């Protein structure tokens, strides 16, 4: 029993070192912009670059649009699957897992071919979307599907969707009222976890933005990385903090709902 414990600790420590050592090294390096002492000079430089704010702002905008569209798509779908077609759940789940199977590069090439003039009606290209951010957002929505669907699905499993829907119906409510006043509020925690995960993914995404030529935080970091030594390290640390911040926020909100549930018993 005791020796097992020791092994568990050793493995944990190896794991933590493997994960945190590169991060610590990056952080340490980012502090050494000025010779012979530790300063936050690299961060100052990074944060005074106008391009940083522009690209970060674009990424933020893409993230918000992705979140809105993803919610509008996933919440009603998952709700309907739970209420009316529980047998379809594994299939829907399978479809949402596609981004784990199809690499982003393949997806973006396929999309830009098909919607960049590849789709023809009587010889004329139709649905040419390559000049608009629609492809980018659509791609991000696909990338966010596994996280968003799972989060919402878990939330729906925790409430009695069918009976709540039926009791609202018998009280005269229509679909709009049921979705906005019953389903959305009771999925708050689940939706927020999906939102933060999506946010974190879109903020750091590189492939889509780079290949579709839209300004975003990911390509900006790559560009800076090719030109400078210290600022990209500072930005890497910043983006890690951003992701962790999102996840931490998600945990913190989720914890509130656990307390609520325990209070009920």
């Amino acid at each position: 029993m005791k020796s097992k414990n020791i092994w568990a600790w050793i493995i944990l420590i190896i794991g933590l070192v493997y994960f945190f050592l590169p991060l610590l090294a990056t952080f340490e390096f980012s502090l050494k912009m000025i010779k012979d002492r530790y300063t936050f000079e690299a961060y100052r430089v990074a944060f005074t670059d106008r391009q940083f704010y522009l690209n970060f702002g674009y990424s933020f905008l893409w993230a918000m649009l992705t979140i809105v569209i993803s919610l509008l798509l996933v919440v009603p779908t998952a709700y309907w699957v739970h209420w009316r077609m529980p047998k379809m759940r594994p299939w829907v789940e399978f479809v949402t897992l596609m981004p784990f199977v199809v690499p982003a590069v393949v997806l973006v090439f396929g999309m830009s071919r098909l919607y960049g003039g590849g789709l023809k009606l009587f010889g004329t290209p139709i649905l040419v979307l390559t000049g608009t951010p629609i492809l980018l957002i659509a791609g991000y929505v696909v990338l966010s599907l596994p996280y968003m669907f799972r989060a919402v699905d878990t939330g729906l499993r925790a409430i009695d969707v069918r009976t709540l829907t039926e009791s609202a119906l018998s009280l005269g409510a229509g679909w709009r009222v049921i979705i906005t006043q019953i389903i959305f509020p009771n999925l708050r925690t689940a939706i927020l976890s999906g939102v933060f995960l999506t946010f974190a993914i879109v903020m750091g995404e590189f492939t889509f933005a780079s290949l579709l030529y839209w300004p975003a935080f990911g390509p900006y970091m790559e560009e800076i990385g090719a030109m400078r030594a210290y600022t990209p390290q500072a930005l890497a640390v910043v983006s890690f903090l951003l992701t962790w911040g999102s996840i931490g926020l998600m945990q913190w909100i989720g914890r509130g709902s656990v307390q609520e549930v325990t209070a009920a018993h």
Partner: protein
Amino acid sequence: MAFLQINNVSKSFGRAWAVRDFNLNIESGELVSFLGPSGCGKTTTLRMVAGFETPTSGVITIGGDDITNKPPNQRDVGMVFQSYALFPNMTVAGNVGFGLKVAKKPAEEIKKRVDEMLELIHMPEYGERYPHQLSGGQQQRVALARALALRPKVLLLDEPLSALDAKIRVSLRAEIRSIQQKLGITAIYVTHDQEEALSLSDRVVVMEAGRMEQVGPPFEIYNFPKTTFVANFVGTLNSASAEVVDPARGLISVDGVQLESAQDLKAMKKGDKVRVAIRPERFNFVAQERKANVADCTIENITFLGSIVRIQVKIGDTKFYMDTFNNPFLELPALGAQDQVTCSKEAVLVLND
């Protein structure tokens, strides 16, 4: 014309019939319960009245309006579910007022009506609480108030007490009945608990395998069951195979022991095989000399059930239960002892299936 009519309603799921040829007229202000084991079609029938299922054939009308194909949110029907189904994100007042808010009633009217409903369920000070802060019994009372707040034409209750513990079940069912009578609302109550059905209904519909077995007031259902299923499902019952001995005099024989029935058996012939049923509480030990319906028996088993003592006796090769009220001075017979039991001829029910 009856207020709520269910005419020739059938419902199939694929090839299986959940409900077949269901016919029932419910008068205004009446409380009818659907009683039966799970899978008998009682909940499906209720859900068709609520609009959550569409009948495969047949017509349902409320107050003369055909509602068979109306969506549930336009039916004016209140529903109480087994799992309470209160909206977790709303307070008690929010839940009770939900339907009125959806119907866009003015705020003062909603408030007044909510207060009235909370008064009705004896929970006036609970308006600001959330469902998770209430006990099961309180949640179900709020669910009842919520269903009644819109003054529906019909109140539907789908096993509303099944999730509660025994004590609360008894007190809440009395409360449901008194509220239903006070408001004079027409109600359908689905349950698998025969005691519940018998204690609160004006009429009971006993269902089995999608069909109605018997419809009648609780007294009739209990005392004069028409089929073996009803006899067995409602209350405890001894049932045994018997043979008709003398149809003119109502004489039958169980394992050679002759019993007289008050029922008219003239349609039967001597030698016909029938089922006979006798309630345990109708048996007595023979205290004085009697001529009819006396049977020799052996005491097989004695079970103490609180207010009653259930004794298993063997008449011929058939085992019967007999119930006697418990009292501290009761002299119980010894196991294996020989004795004699009797019952009135009205207690001997010959079933017709």
